[in-house]
């Protein structure tokens, strides 16, 4: 139907939402973790990011949570919404029930309340997996960059859309059990640099990084990463692809 003619089914009174938030501050370990209820009125197009800011502004300034871009690009506001990882800024309250349970992402170091230090883990993983363009020759900064086929550039960009929010790690059953598992974010980065013609590493080099049970062979295809990725990255396909390539490498 034409949007202008659509009958607006707006209720006369806004819904009263209860946000049940897991509170814990590692700096004050004597206070055990607890769930705290915050009641707010729902507004049109309200996201969890807006709701949380409203709570922090009007009810409890000590509430800790992260955000930067409020548009699903920075990956800071990932948290467990009713037990499932999601970006607060991309979650509309109208898609949730009247009681919304919020908890910090598991696996990552807790900073306080809903804030976790994903950056520390992402940095460590990037260093461990050497997720950068590795070249054997120093780059000549004055030379023109080599041309790249648009299709290839698109394919690289598709994988480069990862925002390192940590949702794939929080949704990964393997990572919950095995802390050293690199997760979909790590494997996706390897897939991205493997595509890049500027990266001179071979499959044998990539095998050194992900060819074990903490890498691609540790993945048990539970596919939580694929299903909960807020950027809808093709993680299922990429991990299967890497597994085939690394298996060929490993069979040599």
């Amino acid at each position, binding site marked *: 139907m034409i949007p202008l003619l659509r009958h607006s089914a707006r209720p006369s009174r806004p819904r009263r939402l209860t946000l049940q938030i897991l509170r814990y501050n590692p700096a004050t370990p004597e206070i055990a973790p607890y769930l705290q209820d915050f009641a707010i009125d729902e507004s049109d197009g309200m996201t969890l990011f807006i709701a949380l800011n409203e709570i922090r502004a009007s009810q409890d300034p000590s509430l800790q949570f992260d955000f930067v871009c409020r548009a699903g690009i920075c990956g800071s506001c990932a948290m467990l919404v009713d*037990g499932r990882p999601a970006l607060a800024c991309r979650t509309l309250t109208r898609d949730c029930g009247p009681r919304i349970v919020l908890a910090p992402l598991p696996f990552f170091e807790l900073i306080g309340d809903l804030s976790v230090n994903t950056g520390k883990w992402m940095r460590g993983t990037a260093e461990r997996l050497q997720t*950068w363009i590795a070249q054997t020759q120093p780059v000549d900064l004055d030379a023109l960059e080599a041309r790249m086929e648009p299709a290839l550039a698109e394919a690289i960009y598709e994988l480069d859309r990862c925002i390192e929010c940590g949702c794939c790690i929080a949704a990964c*059953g393997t990572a919950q059990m095995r802390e050293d598992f690199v997760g979909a974010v790590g494997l996706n980065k390897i897939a991205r640099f493997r595509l890049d013609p500027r990266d001179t590493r071979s499959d044998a*080099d990539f095998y050194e990084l992900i060819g074990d049970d903490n890498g691609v062979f540790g993945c048990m295809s539970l596919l939580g990463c694929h299903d909960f990725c807020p950027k809808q990255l093709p993680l*299922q396909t990429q991990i299967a692809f890497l597994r085939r390539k690394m*298996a060929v490498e490993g069979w040599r």
Partner: protein
Amino acid sequence: MRQYAKPTLPPLPVEPDGLAPPSARLQHQGQSQALTASRWPARLDLLQGISGLALALFLVAHMAFVASILVSEEMFYRVARFFEGEWLFGTPHPWLVSLVAAGVTGLLIVHAWLALRKFPASYRQHSAFAAHRRRLRHVDTSLWWLQVVSGFILFFLTTIHLYDMLSQPALIGPYESADRVWSGRMWPIYLALLFTAEVHGGIGLYRLALKWGWFVGDAPNRGRLRLRRVRHVFTAFFVTLGLVTLLAYADLGRNHAAHAGERYQPPPSAEPARS
């Protein structure tokens, strides 16, 4: 984007051969030669998939053979004699069945041992996964757990059946098998085995396809949905066929209970003419 160059290799010291300190030598050789990652994780992962695939295919074939009782008692008798190599040697050789049972047992041990690598091993891993499964409410995560549980049950149930086939290979026939099911009170084992094996095999084949990206196509979500439907049909078909077959054996065994232990004799007309 900031770019990094791989560090250049340090030169080897100029001392005569054999005098260079090992650290310098290792450094010079670079990571690819000095510290090469083991190829075994790849091989073990492949072996787990191949052994699982072989077992699942065996399960399908096995079901087709035992279900031949639904055609006729004589049909099953013929199938059993076929696997005893009667068509090849002229006389049945039950040790061939033992051989197959031994092969399947070996495959099962390899598969179980490789799958153990993925099992939660400690209390922390168990509780972390259980909490994760409960809060995520995600189909494929829960299916994996079902596969772990069914696989664990299969460790025990399969060995009972396989030892039977290994030790008494000659006792496969319409009356012999029916007596085992009913008078031998094996039907509870077979009933449990049917559900656990078909569920485990169905999920296993589905996960194998997803793991290696087979039959998924270009659209992963649509491909997965398609595979999920195939899995439902697979499990439903084989569980139903298995239940009907088991019921047929139980019924035959119940009617034959008074003569339990008596061997099946095919009707004379069906005997192949031997001179």
